[in-house]
């Protein structure tokens, strides 16, 4: 296990170098010039020129990348070109929000997707299956922000059950946190829940045909033990992988949901920094999200190793 973690961490290093270099190279092509904005509304052309020089935008990207990397290796991710805030602070401020959002969306996906998928698999082609499949397909088909706005309109604006914007950290006020996070999590997690339900249905159907379930039944185990313990543990394998891939998708989709619910997460920052060429912030976000994804995949692998000891030994 420790070896696995160690190996993955080592493998993450070239990955991080690769993506950050890619970002660096990439930003060259993004049109626009942050210096124009940074220099201020009343700046002259010379001032813009000076600003550009000060920010180092004149250097070729490998030079800038090397400089950034040198700093980053010392733990300094630089400062936002626009707000002059340290990138690490911006990330520390916003990443927990986005993480909380994506994780609760994932949790929602699990809590809804697993029972739904199981019920569907146990009644193949009968009405519960059809209902679950119908809703699941719908869940995948609904544009996330549309769903988000509809939820917002119904539950927050008309029924007044939830606030329409903002975020309270969990440690400050758990109940208020829940009120803020619930609707966005549902909106964000709906497609994931649908995907989990569909995949679980499939792998459950597969599992239900496995010989070892027949063995379990032949032992006289109760039906709920056979399904809830034996079948689920086996069928969960693909779901863990699905959840890991969903995590990457959710991180991206969070942009839109955060916008719809005005949640101060990483999303808006990501979009505006890419558009405005705030390279240090983009780098920071990419580093963090890559790490998140590496960690997620690692967690998925560890879970899978537990779910399937055989794969671990190979």
């Amino acid at each position, binding site marked *: 296990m420790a*070896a696995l973690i160690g*190996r993955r961490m*080592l*493998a993450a290093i070239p990955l991080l170098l690769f993506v950050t270099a890619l970002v660096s190279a990439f930003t060259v092509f993004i049109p626009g010039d942050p210096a124009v904005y940074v220099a201020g509304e009343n700046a002259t052309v010379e001032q813009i020129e000076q600003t550009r020089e000060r920010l180092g935008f004149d250097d070729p990207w490998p030079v800038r990348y090397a400089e950034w990397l040198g700093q980053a290796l010392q733990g300094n991710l630089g400062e936002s070109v626009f707000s002059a805030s340290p990138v690490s602070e911006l990330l520390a401020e916003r990443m927990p929000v986005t993480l909380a959002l994506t994780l609760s969306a994932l949790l929602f996906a699990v809590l809804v997707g697993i029972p739904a998928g199981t019920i569907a698999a146990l009644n193949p082609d009968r009405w519960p299956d059809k209902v679950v499949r119908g809703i699941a397909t719908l869940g995948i088909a609904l544009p996330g922000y549309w769903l988000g706005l509809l939820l917002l309109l119904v539950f927050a604006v008309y029924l007044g059950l939830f606030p329409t914007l903002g975020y309270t950290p969990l440690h400050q006020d758990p109940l208020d946190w829940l009120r803020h996070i619930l609707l966005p999590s549902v909106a964000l997690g709906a497609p994931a829940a649908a995907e989990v339900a569909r995949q679980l249905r499939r792998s459950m159907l597969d599992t239900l045909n496995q010989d070892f379930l027949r063995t379990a039944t032949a032992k006289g185990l109760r039906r709920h033990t056979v399904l809830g313990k034996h079948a689920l543990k086996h069928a969960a394998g693909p779901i863990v992988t699905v959840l890991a891939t969903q995590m990457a998708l959710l991180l991206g989709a969070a942009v839109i949901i955060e916008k719809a619910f005005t949640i101060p997460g990483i999303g808006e920052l990501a979009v505006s920094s890419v558009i405005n060429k705030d390279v240090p912030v983009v780098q920071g976000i990419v580093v963090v999200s890559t790490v998140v994804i590496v960690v997620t995949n690692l967690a998925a692998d560890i879970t899978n190793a537990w779910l399937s000891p055989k794969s671990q030994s190979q």
Partner: protein
Amino acid sequence: MTLDDVHVAFSPQGLFRRRTAPVRAVRGVSLGVGEAESVGLVGESGCGKSTLGRVAVRLLSPTSGTVSFQGQAIQALPERRMRPLRPGLQMVFQDPYSSLDPSMTVGDSVAEPLRVHERLSGAERRARGREMLHLVGLEERHLDRYPHEFSGGQRQRVALARALILNPQVVVCDEATSAVDVSTQNQILALLRELRHDRGMGFLFISHNLAAVRHVAQRVAVMYLGKVVETGPTARVFAAPAHPYTHMLLTSAPGASRRGAGGATPVGEPPSPVNPPAGCPFQTRCPMVMERCRVEMPAPTPVDGGGEVACHLQTDGPHLAGRPLPETLRAGV
């Protein structure tokens, strides 16, 4: 076709994967199949039979050793130069379910070798395919069907038809009859015999079913943990096994006779090919193991009645071949 001192080791690869010890699947096997000769290869699951078979048709390159076909060493031939030799050297696989492409009709599968090696029109190919199906006991109407419409036995016959369509000199049959009913098995065995007699084909017949081997093979090689422990004419090996393992195989085949013999239950299980024990590979299960077996690899020694055996008993101990079974072997450990 001859194999000479073939070694195969599988070493797990991977950039970030932990290195593990190689699996030494085949360790120095020499074996030949002559014209119109059928050689049986028997041994326990995992002892390296299939690996050897795959080396013989050059699906695998051996780690060391030579494989020659029609006097030409083929173990290192590039695929392009190997291709002209392919028609003479064919193989039938164990699993009847995965050895036919599910997206192709049976007719296309059978005719695939013709498409590769001969310039024929579609009609000609079809005619040859039909002929081949007849030979293996199927009918023309089967040509346009898909594998999933066939039973295991039928598929195995289709696979055989595909291997035979180019009229090969040597066919490696890797457990070609293991997955089918006894009845079908007999049918296929009869067909193989016929092909050998009428067309002079040679067979390397891999099986763990001793009875089947006995029915088709003139010579038998017994493998254990990557090594050939005994070879010899079929009749001699079955009547007077010279290696304790061969003996164990024969006596443990189920049947009324075994029941009558009074419960000589074989012991233990074969060790892992990842780190085979030093000395004789069979030492962990051998009821007659001696001090020497643990340190020294027995060399092949000729046996009365033909063939060779790699066992210290042959040189040092009470010879097995041609003698009544010693008490120790009867009673188990």
